[in-house]
């Protein structure tokens, strides 16, 4: 993990109409790390993610990705950055009217000059990476939830992006599939050095593969903790952080794990 920040968020303010969700949020994500954004319900983590991937424009603050300010009033800069990132949405957001091949090939066809033949091989390679070899002609509706997630990851990785964003990737997965997803994410990060930002609440996976985390809080409207998962679990003095990482309700006290 190199020490160059690949994402810099400065004093971000996020609001829906009059309701401010996040206030003065600042943090950095370093190249090659697996970075987790977590927090209780309504803390604004999905909103934060939508700002960082360029879907929403913040009323105040700056977001710089790989040296490009995506909050500046520059449509082209934003589109440029969006070709360097891959996103897996919570609902996988695969294009229902297209086969897996067409889904994954779409960015390849649009943004590269590669021949159809090469694209076909690339797509099959991506599918094999996520253990979906052979499914290129399947429609999304023919796949199970876990398979659709993996197809979504394959699509996010189509252009070999520098940055991958996963929004609640473990939601709705059984423990075994979730563990397999852990392994997949870890291997992508290790083998290809891709920086991965994950929004999640899944404690087991946070401890399994998360390298650095920030915790958001709804009342605080911002970051209340930052560090490695283990640090936050064992050393934090903040009740909210302790409760989250020890999976206990306010007022409860669980010994050890």
């Amino acid at each position: 993990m190199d020490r160059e920040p690949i994402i810099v968020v400065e004093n971000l303010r996020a609001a829906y109409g009059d309701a401010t969700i996040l206030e003065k949020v600042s943090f950095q994500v370093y190249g090659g790390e697996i970075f987790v954004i977590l927090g209780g319900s309504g803390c604004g983590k999905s909103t934060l993610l939508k700002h960082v991937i360029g879907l929403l424009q913040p009323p105040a603050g700056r977001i710089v990705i790989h040296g490009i300010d995506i909050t500046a009033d520059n449509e082209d800069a934003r589109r440029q950055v969006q070709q360097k990132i891959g996103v897996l949405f919570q609902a996988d957001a695969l294009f229902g009217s297209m086969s897996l091949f067409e889904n994954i090939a779409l960015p390849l066809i649009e943004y590269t000059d590669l021949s159809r033949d090469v694209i076909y091989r690339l797509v099959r390679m991506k599918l094999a990476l996520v253990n979906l070899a052979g499914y290129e002609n399947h429609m999304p509706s023919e796949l199970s939830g876990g398979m659709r997630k993996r197809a979504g990851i394959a699509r996010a990785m189509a252009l070999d992006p520098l940055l991958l964003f996963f929004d609640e990737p473990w939601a709705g997965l059984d423990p075994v599939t979730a563990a397999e997803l852990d392994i997949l994410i870890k291997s992508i990060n290790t083998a290809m050095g891709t920086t991965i930002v994950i929004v999640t609440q899944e404690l087991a996976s946070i401890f399994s593969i998360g390298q650095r985390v920030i915790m958001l809080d709804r009342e605080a409207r911002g970051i209340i903790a930052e560090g490695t998962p283990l640090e936050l679990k064992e050393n934090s003095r903040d009740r909210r952080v302790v409760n989250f990482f020890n999976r206990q309700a306010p007022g409860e006290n669980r010994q050890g794990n």
Partner: protein
Amino acid sequence: MYNLAVIYRREILEGLVKTSSDHAKEYSLRIEEQVPGDIVVFISDRLSLHEFNDLLSDARSILKNRSPQKLTLNLGGITYLDSAGTLALYQLEEEYTALSVPVILQGASTRIEGILNLLNQKAHHIPSLNPERKSIHLLEQIGGATRMMGSDFVKVMSFVGILLTAIIGSLLKPSSIRWREVLFYMKSTGVDGLPIVGLISLLLGLIMAFMSSLQLKQFGANIYVASLLAMAMVKELGPIMTAIIVAGRSGSAFAAEIGTMIVNDEVNALETMGFEPTRFLAVPKVLASILVVPLLTIYADLFALLGGLLIGVIGLDLTAHTYIQQTRESIDVSDILYSLIKAMVFAALIAGIGCQRGFQVRGDAAAVGRATTSAVVSAIFLIIVADSAFAIILHYIG
């Protein structure tokens, strides 16, 4: 918690010992009054949904007939308690407390106590966070709708701007157009619509010819049925009817497709992949419509004339040759061109508003339904407005 030290003086009043006749030995009350005004009620066996009303009416009659100063409910004999039963106990408590008679619950077994604790009464007192959904007054609705029309107009105009930019951009760089998509929509808008457009136009032609002949017969002017039909269809009805059918078939489909993609996050996915949703999704639909609706209109005109021909030949004793001749004399190339231009404008309006309504969807399936309806209604409205504009323009030019 029994107070065993007290020696009871039992007093069982027949009238107040009830058993539910349908469930013998399932619910019963035993009432004691060792100290006057201090009533202890032993509830037995089952207290559930079935016994809800029984308990409350029993409690009310105790209140009425015995005027207690204090009520103790002994729950030791309860073997079955569900949430309705618990609610009955709490409601009983409320009714007594409202009349300043304290109620004590005691004697519950550990299991029953657990059930009582679980169904915590405190939640009943938390006020609703959202106001109740009430139907809105008619005047308010009218006012709201009027304001919405204004903001709707602004949204549509801004979409028109984006769409025009996207289309011009696409036309300047034809290789960037997704032709496979354009062909797909040409098929679904044009080819798939041939049966219904043909049928409706044929019938329209038949009806028009028939109705007009009823009048024209009286003047021996049967032959002019052909002229009437030709002019009406080619200049006005052909474009309008075809456009309305296309709005119903395709305008709604475009709105539904895009709206569903919004709900599924597919449009967000396109954006994050660097695609501009309007260019990617709307341009193929609009281009396909503009290319195909004029053809569909001509097709409709022909079928309508066929309908007129059938009436002319079968009903009015005209020869086919005469009919066709008269038709040809009534319309010229400029009329046909006029109709084609109208058709293209209608097509752009239909596809445009269909896509715009689709992009406006937020949230759930009902929103998609509303968008679809709105796409058709707005399209028809725009068609009529455009048609009037055309009529006025033609009047001043032609």
